[in-house]
């Protein structure tokens, strides 16, 4: 069973509504890419979404449906063709403060070592640190990168690079974390470990997370709410509140009937024909 949610209606479950409490709000957003000599390509259509200040939202959807594009619009990297994007109630102009982005692609600086890359997040965060070296050491430890502090990205595996990118994001310490398939290049074990760490960090210090993934179980395990996108042009076809209490246990949750039920529903949503 899945639910078609029109732009304004809350649909199956109540979407948090108090606008002031939302750190991200999209109102009727269309995004089209200009193309030379062709019609603009409509990628996101009539997307309305809000994310609470302490909410963990996961986005799932087929490849090419505009998930990364939505994150780019939230971070101010591109302007929607129609509609509005608000961060903390203010319309996005330029690049809003306190929004950290972890790209789908590796964007580490190749000439900076692991520690230096993480330090960049710290430097740009603007919070003066009592002991920046200690903060970096803690992050390196947390992400299991010990012994590679001085290595350059060219000497790291894909999964290690993703962990360094996550370290840089955490060092930047944003109120809003946009994570575009952050664990895409990881094996399931490391993925589980880092997912657990991410939850631990977030539970200790709640903030908004928008987490794009193509792994439905990962989405349901991590998030408070899973938003399902249709194929391009991406529209929100369903939203599922995940009421499984926290702290969640990665292994145990997989046999929880609520977990399996929601996963099945999302599978159905994704198979749903768009018209």
């Amino acid at each position, binding site marked *: 069973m899945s639910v078609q949610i029109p732009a304004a209606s809350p649909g199956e479950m109540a979407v948090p509504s108090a606008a002031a409490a939302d750190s991200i709000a999209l109102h009727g957003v269309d995004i089209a890419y200009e193309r030379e000599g062709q019609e603009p390509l409509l990628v996101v259509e009539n997307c309305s979404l809000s994310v609470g200040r302490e909410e963990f939202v996961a986005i799932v959807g087929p490849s090419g449906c505009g998930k990364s594009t939505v994150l780019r619009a939230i971070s101010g990297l591109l302007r929607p063709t129609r509609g509005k994007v608000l961060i903390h109630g203010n319309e996005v102009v330029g690049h809003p403060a306190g929004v950290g982005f972890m790209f789908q692609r590796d964007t580490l600086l*190749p000439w900076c070592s692991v520690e230096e890359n993480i330090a960049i997040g710290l430097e740009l*965060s603007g919070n003066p640190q009592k002991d920046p070296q200690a903060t970096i050491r803690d992050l390196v430890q947390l992400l299991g990168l010990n012994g590679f502090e001085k290595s*350059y990205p060219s000497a790291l595996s894909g999964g290690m690079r993703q962990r360094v990118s996550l370290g840089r994001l955490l060092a930047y310490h944003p109120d809003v974390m946009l994570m575009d398939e952050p664990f895409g290049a990881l094996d399931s074990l490391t993925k589980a470990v880092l997912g657990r760490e991410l939850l631990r960090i977030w539970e200790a210090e709640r903030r908004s997370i928008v987490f794009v993934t193509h792994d439905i179980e990962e989405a349901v395990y991590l998030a408070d709410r899973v938003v399902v996108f249709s194929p391009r042009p991406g529209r929100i076809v369903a939203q599922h509140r995940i009421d499984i209490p926290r702290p969640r246990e990665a292994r145990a949750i997989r046999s929880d009937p609520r977990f399996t039920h929601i996963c099945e529903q999302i599978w159905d949503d994704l198979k749903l024909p768009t018209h």
Partner: protein
Amino acid sequence: MALENTDIAARKGRVPMVAQRIILISVLLTIWELGSSLTEGEFWVSRPLLIVERLITMIQSGELLRHLTATLVEAGSGLLLAGLVGIPLGIALERFPRVAKLVEPIIMGLYGLPRVALAPLFILWVGIGLASKVLMSFSMVIFVFLMNVSEGVRSIDKDMLDLMSTMRASRSFVTRRVVLPAIVPWILTAIRIGVGLALIGAVVAELIGSNQGLGWFIEKSAGRLDTTGVFTGLIVLMAVAMLANFMIVSAERRLLRWRGNSR
């Protein structure tokens, strides 16, 4: 750390590259020496032993040092100046694409100009002294810096820059931490190509008007039908270019360690 090429060669029992090169050069020199003395070609192409002899006398008389220093100062200043102007200008052109588009035809026009033909003009403008040679070298090399640096800036990963702007990095932060490190390989390539061109510029300017320098020495020797002198000058120029190249390669190794051994 992966094995260096030479280590692998040594393990496989092959002669290391340096030795192979020395052998190749010795063989070429021997052919030259024998060929020249057996065929009476000495007048046209001289002989390695004569050149060595000449080198020794020139070193002893201090003549070599005088000419070498003159040419090195000219070419070196031209190269340095071209870098100092070309690197910031190349970055600026990428930052202001509309200006870049506006001036592009002019730059390409100047680049297409056979700059050797400008030498007499330079001498007219700034006289026969050092300045005209530096200007000549500069005019040869500036375009290499300009184009390499522009290309380098253009090739920077757009996502990397986008990520920096999501973290609201200032323009100077991005320049220092992203743009400059990213173009270091391009600058090194520009220097590598530029060394040869700077030497050409200096030598050409010397041919046209000077009283010292390797170019002038070659010209003077040729005027006296002294082929050994000509070849001595050429060999010294070649050695300078080879040495410069070697220095750049070792600088590259140190500066670009982050690229890893995977290349």
